[in-house]
């Protein structure tokens, strides 16, 4: 069977008319029984063979198809009395109020109707939604007390949820409702928002109920041979039973009361058939007491058809396992365990060119590694290679067959870590088959995936088609994602030891002998020729800058301030004693140090320039080599941190204590000023708020001051000892931790806060019974004076726990909330797209934005969000001049 490709232009939703239901129904269902004594489905029953097949081996009585071929066919139940469809009850209510109870005309004067009609046409023409007009029309019509056409007095209609309508004192039966809806003219229906091609008002009241095919509600046979029916079938049985009884009673001329009761019951069953969670209706239950899962329940919610079967699907050719780091593979590679490689396959079409190779793979079969799991004949039939008789299959293989071979080195696969919050959460990697059982990844790709190795697992998908493979290779490869569309800088880059390694190697005064330099370069896989060594006092040596310069493109020029820059008022530029001013001329780093700003994730200026000017492949190579060089450098130099990194001299400790004493005193003064009423009130704040703000400010300033002192002393002591403080190196180079962390460890932890305030709750007038009532002092409200190194006293520990608890709660609550927000954003934005004319449009072609982001810029191609970076242009020209002058 050839499939003719067709393009779906649009989808139109409408109501099923009774005629249409009868037309599509292959069978009229009349009996509530499903199977006869022999276990065969009864004709005219709910399992009527005309409705399709679910049992293997049987043929469909309608289309002759077998299981899998026959899609199933609808049946119908002729309802003895009309019944309101719950889903439309609200719409029916609105319409009933807007039409005349006698003649069924819309309760508005003709000219008004004409006006609405015009408006609706106008809206439709420009593609605007006409619902607001219809709403307005119905609202206005509701107000009318007397019909304009037949002069009938209108009565108030009450809608008793979910399906009852009461007019004045009389209950309107569904038959009455239907009759009224029938009386609506086509013209009136149109202005009420009906598309007459697919809907008429009275179709909202059911007279015929479509019975879904058995394939929709298959019955399952338990091991005991007992049949268990689907919930929908159970519900349909109920409907049929009541329908039958109602019919019999009507025919027998039973009293009105009994008929109404049965009618009501039929309404209940049909209501719950559509939706078993209608407010005000007790849910229909299974014999075990479990509520039935009816039509609405099948669609709704996380486990519903939409979210779990249409928006999300389960896939084959995928693998999941724990991840672990491997600094020796490239950033665009992924280490795949052989175990996984043997399971995942890639289809390869056999050609005269590859037939020998393919035969070798088939010979290996599914158990020996570079093998194949099955072969596919041109007719689509598959043969598994999980057996020993591969020889005969090899004989048969010829061009045109498809061999599903194992994953091999160099294959492109998709690699993903949940939650997939941005596009860099799924990237294409090249396979590297490796021993052991974890996926291996380069540490530079941790930031985009937000991965660490404390037990994280990731998913891998083997690409099956050539188009997909090509697309993945061009668009999704790791190096194509170095620049983040979030901020226009590199999101992939060095972390932790890579940064401190580069910093240690390139610091002023660090020297390598020729042997050391060769070792480092060899370990990093750099084959470039060593430049001329620097000669000092007759000794030859190399600097780290020289080694890193080997990795740079030969014509790169760049000037930037490193992360360690202290932002002095007067910048000494090239002569910065800390090396914070990085100058690169003609591919040579003339001055400065390499730190987070060089090739760190989120910050790397140098890396950023290489990607933007020399391409993604060059950047990948640079990153691979630079990280290897840095890691070998730090291994050679040696690096460790310990608690003595937070040691301070007695003098420093005294100064810190003094600052804290002063701060606490100042807080006391503020409180006193407040008590005396001389505290100056800040604009827009109450006196209490002012006091709180001032106290918070005072204490945070004090904490910062102690931090500065600690930092100062740490710096000084490392100079004196000739050994830099490791914790501080990490903080200033941007490898890990911050100066705040250092402050808290060495000097003072500072104010603990809950929801942005000092700790206020607790006993009456005080936080803890250890304080006097009304004590507003620093310590009584959660100021922690101690450092982590010194240790906290019990009170401080408790306040710290309070602050810590808030953090824990926040992370727990936020993850669920942000997931929900993400879902809503995706739903709102999913089909917006930038067209070739640079406009952003939705699927209807309606323009959302004339230029993407109002500037038409792709943020990943911008300089940290700026479309044109003027200073960069100026710099590049100046730099170029300078380098010309040099040469």
């Amino acid at each position, binding site marked *: 069977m050839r499939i003719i490709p067709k393009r779906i232009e649009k989808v139109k939703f409408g109501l099923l008319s009774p005629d249409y239901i009868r037309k599509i129904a292959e069978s009229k269902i009349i009996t509530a029984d499903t199977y006869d004594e022999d276990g065969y489905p009864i004709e005219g029953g709910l399992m009527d063979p005309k409705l399709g097949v679910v049992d293997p081996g049987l043929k469909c009585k309608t289309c002759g198809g077998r299981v899998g071929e026959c899609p199933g066919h609808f049946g119908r139940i002729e309802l003895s009395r009309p019944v309101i469809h719950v889903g439309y009850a609200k719409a029916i209510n609105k319409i009933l109020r807007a039409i005349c109870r006698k003649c069924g005309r819309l309760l508005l004067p003709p000219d008004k109707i004409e006006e609405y009609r015009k408006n609706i046409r106008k809206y439709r023409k420009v593609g605007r939604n006409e619902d607001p007009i219809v709403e307005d029309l119905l609202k206005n019509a509701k107000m009318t007390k007397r019909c304009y056409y037949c002069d009938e007095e209108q009565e108030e209609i009450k809608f008793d949820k979910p399906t009852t309508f009461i007019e004045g004192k009389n209950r309107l039966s569904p038959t009455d409702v239907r009759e009224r809806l029938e009386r609506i003219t086509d013209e009136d229906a149109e202005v009420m928002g009906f598309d007459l091609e697919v809907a008429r008002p009275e179709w909202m009241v059911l007279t015929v109920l479509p019975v879904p095919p058995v394939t929709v509600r298959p019955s399952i046979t338990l091991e005991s041979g007992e049949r268990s029916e689907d919930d929908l079938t159970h519900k349909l049985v109920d409907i049929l039973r009541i329908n039958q009884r109602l019919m019999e009673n009507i025919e027998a001329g039973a009293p009105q009361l009994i008929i109404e009761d049965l009618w009501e019951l039929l309404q209940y069953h049909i209501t719950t058939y559509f939706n078993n969670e209608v407010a005000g209706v007790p849910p229909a239950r299974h014999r075990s007491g479990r509520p039935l899962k009816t039509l609405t329940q099948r669609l709704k919610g996380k486990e519903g058809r939409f979210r779990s079967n249409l928006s999300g699907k389960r896939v084959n050719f995928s693998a999941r396992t724990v991840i672990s780091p491997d600094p020796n593979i490239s950033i665009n590679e992924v280490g795949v365990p052989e175990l996984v490689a043997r399971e995942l396959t890639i289809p390869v079409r056999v050609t005269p060119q590859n037939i020998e190779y393919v035969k070798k793979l088939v010979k290996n079969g599914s158990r020996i590694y570079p093998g194949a799991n099955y072969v596919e004949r041109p007719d689509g039939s598959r043969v598994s290679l999980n057996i020993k008789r591969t020889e005969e299959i090899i004989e048969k293989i010829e061009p045109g067959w498809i061999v599903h071979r194992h994953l091999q080195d160099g294959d492109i696969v998709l690699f993903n870590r949940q939650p997939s919050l941005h596009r860099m959460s799924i990237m294409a990697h090249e396979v590297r088959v490796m021993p052991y059982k974890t996926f291996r990844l380069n540490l530079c790709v941790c930031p985009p995936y937000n991965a660490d190795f404390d037990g994280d697992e990731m998913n891998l998908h083997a690409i099956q088609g050539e188009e997909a493979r090509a697309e993945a290779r061009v668009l999704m490869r790791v190096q194509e994602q170095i620049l983040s569309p979030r901020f226009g800088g590199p999101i992939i880059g060095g972390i932790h030891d890579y940064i401190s390694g580069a910093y240690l190697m390139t610091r002023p005064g660090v020297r390598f002998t020729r042997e050391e330099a060769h070792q480092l370069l060899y370990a990093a896989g750099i084959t470039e020729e060593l430049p001329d060594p620097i000669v000092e006092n007759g000794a030859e040596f190399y600097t780290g800058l020289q080694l890193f310069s080997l990795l740079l493109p030969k014509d790169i020029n760049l000037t930037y301030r490193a992360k360690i820059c202290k932002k002095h008022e007067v910048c000494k530029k090239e002569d910065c004693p800390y090396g914070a001013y990085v100058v690169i001329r003609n591919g040579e780093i003339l001055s400065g140090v390499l730190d987070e700003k060089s090739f760190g994730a989120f910050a790397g200026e140098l890396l950023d320039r290489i990607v933007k000017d020399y391409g993604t492949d060059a950047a990948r190579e640079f990153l691979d080599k630079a990280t290897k060089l840095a890691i070998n450098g730090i291994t050679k130099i040696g690096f460790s941190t310990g608690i003595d990194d937070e040691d301070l001299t007695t003098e420093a400790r005294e100064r810190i204590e003094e600052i804290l004493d002063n701060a606490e005193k100042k807080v006391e003064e503020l409180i006193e000023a407040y008590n005396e009423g001389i505290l100056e009130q800040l604009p827009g704040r109450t006196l209490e708020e002012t006091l709180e703000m001032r106290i918070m400010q005072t204490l945070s300033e004090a904490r910062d001051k102690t931090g500065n002192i600690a930092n100062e002393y740490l710096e000084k002591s490392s100079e004196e000892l000739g050994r830099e403080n490791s914790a501080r190196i990490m903080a200033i180079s941007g490898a890990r931790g911050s100066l705040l962390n250092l402050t808290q460890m060495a000097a003072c932890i500072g104010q603990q806060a809950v929801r942005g305030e000092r700790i206020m*709750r607790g006993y009456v007038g005080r936080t803890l019974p250890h304080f006097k009532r009304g004590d507003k002092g620093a310590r009584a409200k959660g100021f922690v004076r101690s450092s982590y190194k010194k240790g906290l006293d019990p009170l401080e520990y*408790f306040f710290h726990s309070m602050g810590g*608890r808030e953090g*824990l*709660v926040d*992370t727990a609550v936020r993850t669920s909330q942000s997931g929900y927000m993400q879902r809503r954003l995706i739903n709102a934005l999913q089909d917006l797209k930038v067209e070739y004319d640079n406009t952003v449009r939705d699927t209807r072609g309606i323009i959302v934005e004339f230029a993407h982001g109002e500037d038409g810029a792709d943020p990943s191609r911008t300089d940290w969000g700026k479309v044109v970076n003027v200073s960069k242009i100026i710099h590049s020209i100046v730099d170029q001049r300078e380098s010309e002058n040099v040469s």
Partner: protein
Amino acid sequence: MIDTKPVMRAFLKKRELVRQHIDSFNDFVENRLQQIVDETKEIETDVGVTVRFGKIEVEKAEVIEADGARNRIKPFEARLRNLSYFSPIYLEMTPIKDDQEGETERVKIGMLPTMIKSKICNLYGLTREELIEAGEDPLDPGGYFIVNGSERALVTIEDLAPNKIMLERTEKYNRITEVAKVFSKRGGFRALVTVERDKEGMIGVSFPSVPGNIPFVILMRALGVETDQGIVNTISDDPEIIQTILENLEEFLEVKSSADAMEIIGKKVAAGQTRDYRLKRAEQVIDRYLLPHIGVEPEDRIRKAYYLGRMVLRVLELALGRREPDDKDHYANKRLRLAGDLMEDLFRVAFYNLTRDIKYQLERAVVRGKEPSVQTAVRADVLTERIRHALATGNWVGGRAGVSQLLDRTNYISVLSHLRRAVSPLSRSQPHFEARDLHPTQWGKICPSETPEGPNCGLVKNLALACEFSTGYDETLLLPKLYELGVKKIQKTG
């Protein structure tokens, strides 16, 4: 610095880490079981036979073998053989037929789960060597149950304190209203009574089985405080507060007597019924569902009126800004429900089921023309299975799930931690930031560090190391003392 270690060591020697559960369970077995039985007193059947209950006794844990032999097994055997470590319960029953008291019989009414190391456990009082001899870990803390061979711990439930007035300021439909709430608890019955002041200053009272609010003035009249002066007296003599009450009084000038008020309440609680029934129902509702912790007899009404007056006073003080709303997370407003309390809830329901079954069996026997016998009418399994099922699945009475959990035996510490866990019944899906915070009043009671990460953060708590439990005091012993000291009794005055 004083070395506190010896103190701590001595403390823990006296008060083992799961003492609270064991003490609570012992109290349940020794006192509260009898109380529950006394609440029911007797079963009246429709066939003229009444069964009066006497003393309830629980023997030590045993198992009934297939051959009918009764063995006092040790817990380890229950664990190994997948048995339930339960103790038999005996109840004295006296059949009364046509006012003729029959012979008192001691009937086994079921099996009670035995808490390891409680007084009805076969390990009670054993020394270290004896424990080892019995095949037990001498360091095992006990405090859990064994059901079908699996160890089940009852997790302490943290609840808002019952019978305590809590002031709240709530926003309803953009209007701020002041509310005083009381979870009035009597036996197993909990009734939420609220006193609410709306924006116009009208005070309404709501309590179970009454739809909507009843105006405060009407309720006071119904409770027997008929004069305006009397109503004011129950509240305050502060002029500002009296002002609001006067406004309330003016609204219902036509309601003059208790009878008038009952009429109005009757219309509310039993609309569309006959007048006699309405009045009867109104009285019943007031006695049974309004502040049941004060009493359920007509003579308790006056005390209820004064209690309501107190609630109103607080609401008005809150409205006038003289008071602040109560902090719900303050630990003084929390009560921890231990194993004994939980077993009490369960046993009460199970016992009620049993009495109904006994009644049914007796009636059936009589209808069939047999001589009614207490021995045969009691089907012990009714009680046992109800309790066993709840304990095995964790589905407690009142629809609470996860009350009993499989004891965490990952290691010794996890066992101790599990038995000292307290769970808040708040839903984990809502943020509830305040409830999750570490509250300063938890100092010394709840561990500041141990709480799970994730959705249960701050809702699941663990007891602090030196946390001790106080279990309340019998007020019937306290009241005479207070009267002795000169406290005036609330009495109906003319």
